[in-house]
């Protein structure tokens, strides 16, 4: 039982792989939101990390100010973040669609600074703890490793969300409208579909996914104003590696890179922070469009 795998005790190996899978769940949820938004709006949402942080903070505020617990927060925080996103899209982003896409990136960069700066001003840089809900405390022994229940839940929840989003986009009527509007918005509008509203809802949905990821992350990492700013850059790298072309590609790349990062922590911990960026560089040299992307 207590043998080693490549000279590493299996407990440590599986422990790090689990951590990698958790990180991968967040990469997948965030890059999924980025890909959905990019597909429709042609905007890279730099504010995605800040809105993920906002989701975690909304959950924390709901608990500490109103006494509303985790399960309600799981529903309310994405709705609040999504509504905030809808307002941002309606008032600011929608003015930029006719311009170079880079302006969308710059605008959302400014928004990220504002949101992060405001939370930092209000709550400082130190993290705030968020308790694991009672139903998911404790853990179970799987024989080869100990699995904390909450972490298992995060992996399952993110898988469910990613798969249902994929099904909604690929298999439903609404998803068909969405894909059609991505290809040719003018034609879809001519068929009587309110494309501007669809764009707003798409953005709201994408950032709501970020808000949801934030709530899921709150009990694992501490709730801090800076929790999103590094993550978003890694997710950008994930998106470049996967290519923006496919939803499924974004999700798979997210999980895969999380696992790879976990493996790096086992075998060469010094490189674990940069391994995603190194992989990005290698992929760009070999297949510039990304693993699942199409050359355009």
């Amino acid at each position, binding site marked *: 039982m207590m043998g080693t795998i490549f000279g590493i005790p299996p407990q440590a190996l599986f422990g790090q792989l689990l951590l990698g899978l958790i990180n991968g769940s967040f990469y997948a949820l965030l890059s999924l939101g980025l890909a959905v938004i990019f597909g429709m709006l042609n905007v890279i949402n730099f504010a995605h990390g800040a809105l993920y942080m906002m989701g975690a903070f909304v959950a924390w505020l709901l608990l500490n100010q109103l006494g509303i617990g985790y399960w309600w927060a799981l529903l309310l925080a994405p709705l609040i973040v999504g509504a905030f996103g809808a307002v941002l899209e309606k008032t600011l982003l929608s003015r930029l669609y006719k311009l170079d896409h880079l*302006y969308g990136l710059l605008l959302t960069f400014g*928004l990220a600074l504002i949101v992060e700066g405001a939370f930092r001003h209000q709550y400082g840089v130190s993290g705030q703890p968020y308790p694991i809900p009672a139903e998911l405390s404790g853990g179970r022994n799987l024989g080869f490793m100990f699995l904390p229940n909450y972490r298992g839940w995060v992996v399952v929840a993110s898988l469910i969300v990613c798969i249902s989003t994929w099904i909604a986009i690929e298999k439903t009527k609404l998803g068909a409208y969405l894909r059609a509007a991505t290809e040719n918005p003018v034609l879809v509008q001519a068929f009587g579909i309110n494309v501007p509203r669809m764009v707003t809802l798409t953005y709201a949905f994408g950032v709501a996914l970020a808000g949801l990821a934030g709530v899921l992350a709150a009990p694992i990492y501490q709730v801090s104003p800076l929790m999103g700013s590094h993550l978003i850059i890694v997710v950008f790298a994930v998106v470049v590696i996967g290519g923006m072309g496919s939803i499924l590609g974004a999700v798979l790349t997210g999980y895969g890179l999380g696992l790879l990062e976990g493996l790096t922590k086992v075998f060469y911990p*010094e490189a674990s922070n940069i391994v995603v960026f190194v992989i990005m560089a290698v992929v760009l040299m070999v297949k510039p469009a990304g693993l699942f992307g199409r050359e355009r």
Partner: protein
Amino acid sequence: MSLHSQSSGRASAQAAGAPATAGLTLARVGALVVLAGLLAVPFLLYPVFLMKVLCFALFACAFNLLIGFGGLLSFGHAAFFGSAAYVTAHAVKVWGWSPELGILLGTLAAALLGLVFGIIAIRRQGIYFAMITLALSQMVYFLALQLPFTHGEDGIQAVPRGVLFGVFDLNNPLEMYYTVLGVFLIGFFIIWRAVHSPFGQVLKAIRENEARAISLGYRTDRYKLLAFVLSATLAGLAGGTKAIVFQLATLTDVTWQMSGEVVLMTLLGGMGTLTGPVIGAALVVTLENYLAATSLPVPVVIGCIFVVCVLVFRRGIAGEIAARFGKQSRNV
């Protein structure tokens, strides 16, 4: 020292007036007035503040060479600025090199890094280019955090300013100022030459329509790579000089916030104009100095300026002036 900077400045003013037309004579006079102002201003304002402005102005001009003339938005320019600062600080402090050799080594390091980043990043365009440069610069941030010679969170502190060319004692604020002014003018002149050369013309052609530039027979990747390396080199020149001025190289210099700041300076001053980034850098540095004394959160204010610039002020200050006065809209 003042002689040195004067001569390089005069060279740029003369070159500016080479095609003799009335408008350019005016420009030549204007350039001389600005130069005289730059020489006199340390007697009026705090030199350290001015040196900070000049370092960031050069940094922003270098960045602008890519976005303004090549249409490439790099979101990772802090990597070149910061790593040059580290290399210069290390060479001067630990190896005891003279300041000019230290800055030279820092600049070379940035050039090399620019070559590596450039080869990777120019494989994609537009938004992807921005994301790739951002991700690569974040890698540099982590290396700066972990490598032994950068001293992690502490950075390299108490870097001696030393004696330039064995003659000018840089501990004297005026001699330091004129050195920085000289470095800035050299950098600015290089950018001015590059923009007005055939190389600069091809770069603008690539910005406007890359497919067409390719069909005309230009190997656009090579032009973009050269522009990227040149931009990185000059950003490194600014970073190395900054390390000598402030006797410090820290993690702040390699963060993505620093990359964002240089984007803002250029956007505010006017992308694709020669003087815009200088104006933008002066404004942003002044604003940050002012904000440091208040309780207003700096990122929020910076973010708001970003949003306003993108929504209603995309030409920036220099671009707006050029448009108002109906002069040729670019190359102010």
